[in-house]
């Protein structure tokens, strides 16, 4: 079976790099970027099965990014991750169809299980 293709989006590079390495060690095909703008560019040109998206970022925030993803790639699974326990952000994320809303820090085994669950039905943002 093909490895799951995961995109990690967080403005904290020090968070993105080790997480990408840990996911790759677990058999994922993970890539990481530090802005919402980069994420949208990468999604446009590549296949991903799931996106892990930080809510609060300079420039395009996670909620802006998920809105754009929903317009172009409605089947792509998005998991929101944040250091903020904002009820309003969580509600908005759910209204925009995020698969899960997670609070940092997250256990890697839990994250892996959520990725598999999120991709249980659909694979790939480019599939119709």
């Amino acid at each position, binding site marked *: 079976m093909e490895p799951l293709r995961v995109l990690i989006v967080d403005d*904290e590079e*020090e*968070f993105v790099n*080790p*997480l990408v*390495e*840990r996911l790759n*060690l677990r058999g994922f095909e993970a890539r990481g970027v530090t802005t919402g703008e980069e994420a949208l560019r990468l999604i446009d040109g590549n296949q991903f099965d799931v996106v892990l998206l930080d809510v*609060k*970022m*300079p*420039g395009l925030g996670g909620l802006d990014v998920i809105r754009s993803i929903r317009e172009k790639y409605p089947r792509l699974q998005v998991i929101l991750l*944040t*250091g*903020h326990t*904002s009820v309003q952000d969580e509600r908005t994320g759910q209204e925009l169809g995020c698969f899960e809303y997670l*609070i*940092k*820090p*997250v256990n*890697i085994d839990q994250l892996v299980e959520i990725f598999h669950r999120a991709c249980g039905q659909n694979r790939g943002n480019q599939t119709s």
Partner: protein
Amino acid sequence: MSPDAAKPSSDRDRTYFGAITASLSHEINNVLAIINELTGLLSDYLVAAAGGRPLEPDKLEHAIGRIQAQLERGKQHVQQLNHFAHTVDNSRQQLDAREALDQTVQICQRFATLRKCRLEADPPQGPVPLTCCPFDLEHVLFRCIDAGLGCTGTGGTLAIRTEPSGSGGVRFVFEGRQPLEDASAAAARIAPAEQVADSLGCNLEVQAADGLPLRLVLEVPAEMECGGSAS
């Protein structure tokens, strides 16, 4: 007028408290998340080594160095949160206005980063004594910085100067480095700062016109009672 400007002062105090504690706790959560990933990565290396893959000392050293850097970052955020908590200890005390500004600027750096702006403070050489409530002083400074950042476009800079005022108090000058594009939108962003300054007996002079850089001049009297009665 922004929604916050219309609120009574106790509500404005609460929104200030919420903004600061949410921002600092968010930063601390980020630090914890990074340490969680870096220690997890070290653990993954050990598991891989137990399976026969040789340990790479350079990678271990690199991860440990990053953990130490995050511990230092976390310590600074905890100190900022602790400082903020202690601003309510005394309703009236003598303090150095430079330190109050420095603390507020440090706390506001994330607000600037989120707006892709730069925040620069140029403190004077000597101490700037003031008698006031530290919570109130940092609150009004925060409101001015927040208003200034809100009016500063992406990539812009907000610079802050501190100087003595003629009345024996202190003047804080907040200046944008680029021209304002929408003065009417700026007025709404500045309104909460004006309300807080007014309620604390401070004077906030606003220069916000299309095509000119934003300039806010906050005059704090030498002695300011807690909750605002200037003496």
